[in-house]
């Protein structure tokens, strides 16, 4: 069951997730074998800064996800602020400006669910630090579709609520520190 080839890796979080993400990226040995898509709850104004920051801290090419773009292995994409990020049947990104979900846009639930429907067992999702419960329901769907579901270990999370919710609700087995998450990505 763990032999699934990962075709898409989603990493999501809210408060405290950026630190964890930077730690994870700093320990990658090579360009990841799958596209990585980042979904963070952030203010729209900070979006350009976020992309610059991620670009500066990792050798992986970073850009904002564009609609109809097909994500490529070895690239890092950031969900645009103020849009939900969805996936079409051909694997491409799709954007949706409809109402917030869990007070959030982008919502992690929306992206996890949509990616689960398209990528099924080829999906891996990772939930990092955060202060609300966005992500758990999307991960439930991803899990049901055979995706790999990983939560940041609450002990290492600046704000443990978000990963804790998913671990508790979904009885997640893969609970990793940022270093272990890097290892996981390095082994893809």
């Amino acid at each position, binding site marked *: 069951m763990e032999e699934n080839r990962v075709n898409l890796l989603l990493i999501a979080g809210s408060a405290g997730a950026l630190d964890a993400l930077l730690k994870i990226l700093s320990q990658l040995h090579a360009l990841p074998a799958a596209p990585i898509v980042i979904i963070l709850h952030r203010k729209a104004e900070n979006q350009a800064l976020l992309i610059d920051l991620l670009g500066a801290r990792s050798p992986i090419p970073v850009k904002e996800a564009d*609609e*109809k773009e097909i994500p490529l292995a070895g690239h890092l994409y950031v969900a645009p602020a103020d849009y939900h990020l*969805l996936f*079409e049947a051909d694997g491409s990104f*799709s*954007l*949706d*400006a409809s109402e917030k979900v869990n007070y959030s846009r982008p919502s992690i639930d929306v992206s996890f669910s949509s990616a689960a429907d*398209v990528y099924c067992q080829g999906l891996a999702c990772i939930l990092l630090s955060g202060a609300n419960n966005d992500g758990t329901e999307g991960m439930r*769907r991803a899990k049901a579709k055979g995706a790999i579901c990983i939560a940041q270990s609450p002990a290492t999370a600046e704000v443990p609520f978000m990963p804790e919710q998913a671990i508790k609700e979904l009885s997640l087995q893969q609970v990793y520190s940022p270093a272990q998450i890097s290892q996981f990505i390095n082994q893809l």
Partner: protein
Amino acid sequence: MTMETNFADEEIGLLLTDIVDRYGYDFTGYTMASLKRRIARFFIIKKFPSFAELRYALLNADSLFNEFVEEITVNATEMFRDPLFYKALVNEVFPVLRTKPFIRIWHAGCSTGEEVYSMAILLDEAGLLSKSLLYATDLNPGALETLQKGIYPLDHFRQYAENYSQAGGNQGFSNYYTARYGFAKFDERLQQRMVVSTHNLVSDSSFNAFQLIICRNVLIYFDKELQSRVLSLFTDSLEPLGYLALGAKESLRFSGVENSFTPLSIREKIWKKIA
């Protein structure tokens, strides 16, 4: 959320074909991921026991179909969404509009009209409103009713006031509406310059020549082919040297009309039509 609502593309396809045949609304060029999500939402809200039941009910009740259209097309909009976009319009497009004897602006796919009122306010502050007409169209009649009433819940007005200032508004946002019982009603002076009509970008044609067309966060719901068609419709509906403004994540790439325009502000998604 946990209910199985991941309908097969084939099922959705059949429903969309039924809808074209029965009601003349063509959603087949819409992007599937978003459409599916909206249909799933409708399915849950209306508590249908199965997709077949939903399909049957939709084809046999016009009133339900109207609700369906509202649910799958109404998308969140806000006043002065992306304030810097409005600032760019005021600074870079208004000076050109000012030279025209008469200004025609088309808000295509305007939903409940928050952005149309935003525009009317900025035109007013620039002293241009009295010579402007704002054509506000959407395929959803329910959304246009809201626009025509000009009444919106006050919940978001604190944010709107902030957006207004960032957009360069300087007369005091609260001067444009009266607040009562949790709602704000906009000054009728603004509405007098609006021409409101249903228009379906998928099937209806050009109806005037405009100096500025604003269509934001509509094209993201269309597939490439439909995007191209709608962008051609806009190109044909613009006067020479007219302006086209799209949403923050929309562009003319791959559309076939890219060569008819020159970018005015790449960041704020404003293009100028080449004569």
